[in-house]
């Protein structure tokens, strides 16, 4: 008996992991530190450095090795069982959730984690430490003559009526490559049908795909791109503060709120030190440093959740759904059909 199962044929990187691409690696702490442990993270180092520096300043005996990689690479590194990292930090909530669900995380309990809000903690294993609105970024120069998009439908109308402005000048995450982008797109697909129409219109405009928020922001900033859809809010705010051309737009129909999460892997050789750092990261002091010096909004910052029609992405097992092989293949096929024309 032969069963025909449709397989997404375009890009198939779901198979066996082929090793992690380390984007950057930096050591924090004194040379003579006795103990050291490793953080495997997808968060840009500039945003995360202040809180690590504050920790090693208070604990001169501890050094931290910070390894930056993409959320997908982080997932396969831990899932394959190769990684020997002590703390895993990623913005791809779904991948983090799947790693924890599949038993890759250690349990960690402390007075600090007991004080976390329910939505920021799962099974005493996965901890949210920063919230991020997912935003639209537009170039001020291009939008000088255009209205600011109020909703996705409005944005759609603006693109349709100004093809000369937007042709080949729209950007968004390549969800085939970026775990975070995949999460944003799937949550968009859950929220509304407008997402698919928007995707098709963006596809018809020759939208450029990118691996990361940083690249998208740089292109908009330079004026090369007119708008970037689904950009991590904190990165966008940080750029907008420095550069005049970037404008951050919270679309009113809904704004997905991302939770950056961390967990201690079961295979961690230095779980105690990682726990100490996690405690610091989740403590009020750590959160203040993270927000004021790093620019990552604290989970205790209520202004994020008060954004019009904020839709916080729930830290729950629903996240596993789009990571199902068949569901993921279906989604990517649809998405590629819409955007890559």
């Amino acid at each position, binding site marked *: 008996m032969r069963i025909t199962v449709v397989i997404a044929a375009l890009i198939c990187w779901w198979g066996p992991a082929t090793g992690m691409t380390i984007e950057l690696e930096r050591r924090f702490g004194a040379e003579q530190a006795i103990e050291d442990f490793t953080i495997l993270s997808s968060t840009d180092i500039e945003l995360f450095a202040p809180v690590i520096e504050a920790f090693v300043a208070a604990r001169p005996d501890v050094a931290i090795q910070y390894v930056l990689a993409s959320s997908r690479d982080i997932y396969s590194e831990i899932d394959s069982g190769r990684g020997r990292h002590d703390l895993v930090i990623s913005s791809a909530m779904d991948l983090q959730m799947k790693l924890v669900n599949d038993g890759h995380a250690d349990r960690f309990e402390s007075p600090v984690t007991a004080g976390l809000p329910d939505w920021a903690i799962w*099974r005493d294993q996965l901890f949210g430490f920063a919230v991020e609105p997912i935003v639209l970024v537009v170039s001020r120069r291009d939008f000088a003559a255009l209205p600011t998009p109020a909703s996705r439908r409005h944005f759609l109308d603006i693109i349709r009526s100004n093809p000369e402005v937007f042709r080949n000048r729209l950007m968004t995450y390549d969800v085939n490559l970026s775990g975070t982008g995949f999460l944003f797109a799937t949550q968009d697909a859950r929220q509304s049908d407008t997402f698919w129409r928007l995707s098709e219109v963006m596809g018809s405009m020759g939208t450029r795909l990118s691996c990361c928020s940083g690249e998208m922001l740089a292109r908009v900033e330079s004026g090369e791109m007119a708008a970037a859809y689904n950009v991590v809010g904190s990165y966008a705010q940080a750029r907008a503060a420095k550069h005049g051309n970037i404008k951050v737009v919270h679309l009113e129909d809904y704004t997905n709120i991302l939770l950056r999460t961390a967990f201690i892997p079961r295979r961690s050789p230095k779980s105690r030190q990682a726990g100490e750092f996690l405690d610091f990261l989740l403590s009020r002091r750590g959160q203040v440093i993270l927000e004021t010096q790093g620019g990552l909004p604290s989970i205790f910052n209520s202004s994020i959740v008060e954004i019009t029609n904020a839709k916080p992405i729930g830290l729950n097992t629903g996240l596993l759904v789009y990571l199902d092989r*068949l569901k993921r293949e279906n989604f990517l096929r649809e998405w590629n059909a819409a955007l890559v024309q």
Partner: protein
Amino acid sequence: MIQTSTVQLSLRNRLLVILAFLVAIFSLVLFISMRTLTGQAVSAAQDGLLKAAAVSILEKVRISDGALFFDLPYDTFTILGSIGEDRIFYRIDANSAFLTGYEDLPISDSYGDERTPAFASIDYQGEILRVAAIEKPVLVEGQSIRIRVLIGQTSNFQVQLLSQLTENLLIIVVSFCLFAGLLAALTVNSMLNPIRRLADAVGRRGPNDLRRVDHPTPQELAPLMTALNDFISRLSGALKQTEIFIAEAAHHIRTPLATVKSEGELALRKVRKPENRAHLRNIVRSVEQANRSATQLLDHAMVLYRMEQPERRMVGLLQCVNDMVFNFAPSAELRDIEITVDSDISQELELYLDQTLLETALRNLLDNALKYSAAETTISISLNASPDSCRISVRNRPATMIEIDPDLMTTRFSRGANATDVVGSGLGLAIVREVMMALGGALEIEFEKGGHLCASLSLSRR
């Protein structure tokens, strides 16, 4: 009153222990059965969730262009993990070919249909997984394929819910236990109350009260009551017979004694020889003593009889005292003793009591006073009254005076050390005391300065 030294195990404690034991057993049974029911309900709830999840996965199966499409329901997965933050594992197979999910999750031995899924608990990744298995045939390009859905959840949900429910259950059972224990204690107390009341009622009785016990008692105590009353009536019967016997004996002895005494006195007048006179005087003296004893025994028996059947009426106290003094005047004159009455009370003061008893007391008291007083002295009787009570005091000056315990003086057949040369039985003050008890009064004896002895009767005016 109640002797406890011989009580080995109290009824109360025995009942309490038994009831406490029963309550404990019942609570335990209640707890276990409710815990079991709760456990069943919780696992039924989890099974229901798993079933709903499996069914909703199957419902989303589409066939398009000869290909199978699945759309895992996001919300179902959210709900599955929401209660106990449980881990979720699933696999979907087409016939025996793995399609998606966790390939290392063991296939279920049996698959149910959408209405009755097959449930099982399996060990997976070191945790106990509750799994539901459903299969459904679909037609793909003319071929029938069985879509098999296996979805499992860790038991955190169950554990968490159960521990919460068990905590509440414990609170309920413990409070029930305490409440039932309290009720049991109250019940036992109220059940044993009649016994305590009966004991109190019997304990409150005076030493001479040998009436039937007529206290209301529960049915179960009736045999005890009957036995007690039988015993009392037998005892009082025996006592009565003894009294009657003594009274009869005294009466029978008195008449011949009087004869002997008068004969002796006659003989004394005729006899001239000093040694014979001495013998006769001794005889007369002894007979006199025997006569007195017999009289007092009769008095005593009368007092006991009157105590049970008093004949109360209004008695003028002063009149009664004056009459008694008048009776004693001749004997007092013989010894040059003066009796004075000094009264604070009016002629009209009357008390409701048995006159014969009062007279007996007064007679014995005066008799005693006269007997032991030195010659040519005064016996002064004083009467006082307060709103509550009356007091009759007889004060005399004994010929010889040795202070002894007043309590001992009122004991039957015990006599003061000064009484050896006086005719007497030692019953006089004992009779006075018994009368006073019967009248609800009291006898007090005091040794006063100047060699006086004062005996007071106090009587209640109520």
